[in-house]
């Protein structure tokens, strides 16, 4: 990344053909949209989980399989996974130095987020469809 001090090219020449920055705010906006979505979803789910205290397995599973609860759960999982992927990426980009280590951390973040997200979605769908 670091341009050599002896580089004779103009700043414009250096950035040309490296793509546009038009999508640069995508993650920034996504981070805030998912945050807004999660405020009511989390307050609902905290109440939901508390109401399940002492419930046996069948009751807990039946409630989680309720379509409205399952849809809210899926919305929450999708929002949370997007939010945490972006958040961890920012943390990595801020603190992890060294090109290779940083790349590995970013790849690991991507894999972990999507693996956990898909596992949650699969589980909620399985409960909801009753299979």
């Amino acid at each position, binding site marked *: 990344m670091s341009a050599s001090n002896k580089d004779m090219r103009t700043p414009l020449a250096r950035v040309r053909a490296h793509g546009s920055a038009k999508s640069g705010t995508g993650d920034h906006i996504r981070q805030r949209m998912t945050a807004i979505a999660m405020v009511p979803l989390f307050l609902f789910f905290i109440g939901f989980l508390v109401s399940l205290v002492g419930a046996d397995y069948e009751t807990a599973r039946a409630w989680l399989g309720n379509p409205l609860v399952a849809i809210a759960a899926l919305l929450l999982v999708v929002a949370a996974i997007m939010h945490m992927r972006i958040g961890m990426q920012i943390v990595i980009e801020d603190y992890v130095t060294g090109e290779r280590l940083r790349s590995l951390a970013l790849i690991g973040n991507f894999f972990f987020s999507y693996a956990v997200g898909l596992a949650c979605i699969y*589980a909620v769908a399985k409960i909801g469809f009753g299979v």
Partner: protein
Amino acid sequence: MRRRAINNGTTHGGSARVPLSSCCPNGVLRMAEQRQAVERPLSPHLQIYRFTITMAMSILHRIVGVALYAGTALVAWWLIATATGPEAYAVFRSVADHWFGQFVLIGFTWALLHHLFGGIRYLFWDEIVGLNNKSADIMSWLAVFAALAGTVAVWAVVFSMRGVI
């Protein structure tokens, strides 16, 4: 850690001009060399700032966010166990009901509420609402106490439903 912030009589970064007479006895120093010779003031290091609640909350927001990131694995375990069957669910329950499991769940509740209330501040500040020193401090303390009160309230309900308290 603290490096020399003031050098050669220049107090601020913008100008690096040093009187030729003071910097080199011969009076011959070309511009490029002169610029290198001057140490510009560095921005203050983290440890010399005084404590502010917004600063502490900013650091905590990241730490708690990373903790919640790891916590999603527990959520996935809980959902998969529920989807798998009563035996898998019983294994999850035995861990969750252990005192250490309870400790983790209480911590998870606090982390979630702290990140949630702390995060709401950022949404306001994005809209330039409450973005002055006094409001920012008040909002930060409100978030701290709302998260603590929320955690206590949630677990008071949980323990009373169990008949523990």
